[in-house]
């Protein structure tokens, strides 16, 4: 028996969507997945204050969540973690897509890094369970892709549009 997180109804094991409310019932696809090696794990605590402390440099970036039309505007920062908040494991992404349907869309808790270097934005997939896509093309795990204004970035199936000033 599964309990739907969205409406608390009881559903059969093996159900993919909740019969009552239509929410995706598939379990978190990355709870036991080994975290990618390298900088992401150790770097997280340092990343967190970046959003609030970096002075506005005029190179802010906006992510438009295409499913909800919500806009997330952030000041330029060397590295921003995109993922899903998991307080129990002290994962506090700078860009928490959990608030934007990220769970349903298969966003990993540590999904990708949005980096700003030499006046350019890029994204790096952190070996996410369901992939990072730039304009529909899936990035190899840990591959880096440059981002331009108007690009469509998808974390799992959550589509985001990049807007640069």
């Amino acid at each position, binding site marked *: 028996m599964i309990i739907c997180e969205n409406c608390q109804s009881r559903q*059969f*094991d*093996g*159900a*993919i969507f909740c019969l009552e409310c239509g929410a995706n019932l598939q379990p978190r696809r990355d709870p036991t997945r080994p975290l990618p090696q390298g900088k992401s794990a150790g770097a997280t605590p340092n990343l967190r204050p970046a959003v609030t402390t970096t002075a506005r440099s005029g190179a802010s970036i906006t992510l438009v969540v295409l499913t909800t039309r919500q806009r997330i505007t952030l000041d330029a920062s060397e590295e921003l973690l995109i993922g899903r908040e998991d307080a129990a494991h002290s994962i506090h992404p700078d860009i928490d897509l959990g608030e934007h*349907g990220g769970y349903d869309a298969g966003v990993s808790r540590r999904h990708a890094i949005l980096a700003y270097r030499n006046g350019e934005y890029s994204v790096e997939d952190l070996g996410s369970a369901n992939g990072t896509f730039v304009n529909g093309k899936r990035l190899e795990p840990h591959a880096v892709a440059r981002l331009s204004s108007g690009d469509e970035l998808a974390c799992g199936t959550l*589509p985001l549009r990049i807007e640069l000033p």
Partner: protein
Amino acid sequence: MAPGIRLQRTLSRAVVGASDEQQLVYVLLEATPEGLPTQMPKLPLNLCLVIDRSSSMRGERLAQVKEAANRIIDQLGQEDYFGLVVFNDRAEVIAPSQRALNKTELKAAVGRVEAAGGTEMATGMALALQEIQRPMLSRGVSRMLLLTDGRTYGDESRCVEIARRAQSRGAGLIALGVGNEWNEDLLETMTASENSRARYISSASDVAAVFAEEVQRMHAVFAQRVRIQLAARPGGLVRALDQVRPFIAPVAIAEESDLVWGANLGDWTGHEAQSFLLELVLPPLALGEHAVAKLTLRYSMPSAGTQLQQIEDVVRLRAVPPAQAGYQVDGTVKHWLERLMAYRLQSSAWQAAESGRIEEATKRLKMASTRLFDAGEVALARTVEEEATRLLRSGVASEEGRKRIKFGTRGLLGGATEERETGSS
């Protein structure tokens, strides 16, 4: 190769965890014809047009419909029957059901139709049912092709009753709504049975293409009176069966005897994929291989004589220790399930809106939009989202938005249908 239907089956999971609880598995059934002769013998067609000629049809709409009717007449062969009934406040038979031999005369009859008056559909439907039963066809495809642009008042239940009578006698109903004023709930209810479908034509200029496509579809029927039977194991059950291709439609399935479910699937067209999604509840399963359901398809194949054909398929899966089962589900199954969920969500949203539960309706539309986004139906997902916002703000959805969503989620939108690639192979 003897002609027949080939059935391909995909499970959401072929391996499940052993469990002492029931669990759910989704089964995608995809049927394709095989071994058909390249030149299929055309089945005689028995077609009756039922055309709304109320005053709102005046001008462009009626002109397009007449043009479309003429094109149908051109498409018909010597074996085919054609009848034409028109209605406004009353109904009349313009061309009694007859072999399409004298095409000039039939077209002249079409030309004499003029628009005036109100809309009273049931009388028109009753006359059409009368006409369509005239020819004594031992074999063939009988359909009523209804076109309307308005609402009928007070005789809705009679319309549904006549539609059911026709369907039970093997005459399907193709109901086409033009513009935004017609009653989509009525057309949907009338066509919620085998061999029937409703379509939304937003622009009158698409009428001819849609008519032509429907006639082509009727001419391409390769299997008739298809019937499915599903036997589950004790402790299991069939929760639902839905058609997902060529368009989404719930299938009326009933438990006919203990643990055996059955449903009529109507006539099948050769150039269209036929797919169904089955929701199967499994009994508690111990470790090992299990046959969990038996599926039987019976049908007749006009090109291969009249005797009943039958195929059987046993659904098997393996139960492993739960920790090894994994959560991976088949992508194609999930895609169609996602589309089906979007259809169900919008459908329950309109019901909620009808009974004044606007917040609930909005929530359901938003979830439908999420499902559509995930299924890659981005444009439709946006339409649903916009209507959800409008509904929350103003308490009502737009007529056009409602129709677009209702028919769009089923894959029945617009003019000529384009076969959509879904990434499934």
